[in-house]
């Protein structure tokens, strides 16, 4: 039976990581996600499962430690918040290039710069459009509850190893800090070294065996023809992911005349807006992207044929709205509403914005 607990989102990630059989966590403290490493060190997972937890000297070091362990075929993760993720951009690009599976968690805070420690969603571009250099994509999952913080740890690793690609969980300070009911997964055994060597013998480094060529983890190929070929291979993989891994949730969409698009904390607020709007006779629905990359463009395009207007609700100055507009292709009016810099919009504000921008306009 799954165990029920009241936990913070950050703690739920940490406990789920232990239970999913994660091999290593390397991290560096930053608000509002430090509870992840604090919980892990308190739990002493090396005693529970043999999981490694190490506090590095910087986000740069922690993500490169992830690179090293991921290159060994181990289930490896790190977590940080916005400024720390910027520091990790280098290695994230390298890992995308070297096709290393791993989980990176961004419990976003408001920016730019040191910004604030309050929640934000202004790292959408960084998460979905790059962050690091080069043509690459991360699979980006956006949990909107403490339960999903726990559930997406296992899902992230499934996807990361399926496609040999880094997965980013784009959360925010509100979900990281809030407590909700969470059903925890059952404890899974960590893979043994022998199992890893058997499963990933075609790419992971664990010591060259006599019966195979050496395995090399690298993102470098100095010959342009080879590098282009590698890029084509990556693009083919991204196309496959785009086709097969789009995830979203439709809430009250069937009869909706106005559509909200929101993820994470914003999606929670939007659910209240649906209720408030419907009390006033405005039929509002919500499309909640669960994967921000790949983005549920097709579903939004379909809904654009049905509704009179779409409002993208984000704790940013307007980032995801560009993807919504691309999906809608001008079929209906698409507007943005956001609070940012650490501010969380209230349901009333969002409803007001919807009325102002889409109904009375």
């Amino acid at each position, binding site marked *: 039976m799954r165990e*029920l607990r*009241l936990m913070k989102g950050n703690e739920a990630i940490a406990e789920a990581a232990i239970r999913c059989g994660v091999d290593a966590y390397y991290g560096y403290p930053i*608000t*509002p996600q430090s509870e992840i490493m604090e919980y892990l060190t308190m739990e002493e997972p090396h005693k529970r499962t043999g999981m490694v937890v190490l506090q590095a000297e910087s986000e740069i070091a922690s993500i490169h430690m992830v690179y090293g362990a991921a290159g060994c075929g181990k289930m490896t993760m790190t977590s940080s918040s916005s400024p720390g993720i910027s520091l990790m951009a280098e290695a994230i690009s390298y890992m995308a290039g070297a096709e290393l599976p791993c989980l990176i968690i961004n419990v976003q805070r408001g920016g730019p710069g040191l910004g604030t*420690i*309050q929640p934000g969603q202004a790292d959408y571009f960084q998460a979905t459009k790059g962050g690091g250099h080069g043509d690459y994509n991360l699979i980006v999952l956006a949990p909107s509850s403490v339960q999903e913080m726990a559930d997406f740890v296992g899902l992230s690793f499934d996807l990361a190893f399926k496609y040999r690609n880094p997965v980013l969980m784009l959360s925010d*300070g*509100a979900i990281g*800090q*809030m*407590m*909700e*009911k969470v059903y925890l997964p059952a404890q899974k055994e960590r893979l043994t070294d022998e199992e890893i060597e058997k499963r990933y013998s075609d790419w992971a480094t664990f010591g060259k065996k006599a019966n195979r060529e050496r395995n090399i983890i690298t993102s470098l190929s100095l010959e342009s023809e080879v590098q282009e070929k590698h890029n084509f291979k990556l693009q083919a993989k991204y196309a496959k992911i785009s086709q097969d891994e789009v995830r979203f949730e439709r809430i009250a969409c069937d009869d909706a005349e106005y559509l909200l698009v929101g993820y994470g*904390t914003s999606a*929670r*607020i*939007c*659910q*209240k807006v*649906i*209720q408030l709007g419907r009390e006033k006779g405005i039929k509002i629905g919500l499309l909640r992207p669960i994967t921000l990359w790949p983005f549920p463009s097709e579903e939004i395009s379909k809904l654009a044929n049905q509704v009179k207007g779409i409002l993208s609700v984000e704790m940013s100055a307007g980032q995801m709205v560009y993807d919504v507009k691309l999906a809608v292709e001008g079929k209906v009016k698409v507007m943005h509403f956001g609070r940012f810099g650490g501010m*969380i919009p*209230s*349901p*009333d504000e969002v409803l007001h914005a919807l009325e102002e921008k889409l109904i009375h306009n």
Partner: protein
Amino acid sequence: MTEEIIIAGFGGQGVLSMGKILAYSGIMQDQEVSWMPSYGPEMRGGTANVTVILSSERISSPVINRFDTAIILNQQSMDKFEKMVKPGGVLLYDNNGITHPPTRKDINIYLVEAAKESALMGSTITFNMIVLGAYLQIKPIVNMENVIKGLKKSIPERHHKMLPLNEQAILRGHEIVKQIQETKSILV
């Protein structure tokens, strides 16, 4: 049933833990719950508040700006949250340090002198449990049995010897509100 509560006061008054006990009690009673703290510099003194929602349905926004109940334990919080109580809602406050008592006429206001009571009980740590007891007398959204279970879950085991004192404080809160309720009904 959905009950949306803000608990607000100074750091160190047990605001967050009171919310946590309430949330845990809700879980014991098969409710959906959310506990959304203000965090950051507030953790290091200054004001602290937590939004707790208990509901029989899936909880939508954990962040709200209108509350069924506001539990207010300092003046800054009174200034901020009195106006956010829904008409017909409840405002429960302790008057220690309150210079401007609430003035709204469209809500039910309860003054619970918990700081004074906790001093009388000989232990100021009972303060937040007196407040919790008072609230649960006004809105019995979770029964006492589940509150005790919630209390046990949210207090580390090494502090379980404090459970009887906490229970006593909750009951004292009940009584205070009972007296207020009786007086009110006499007035009516």
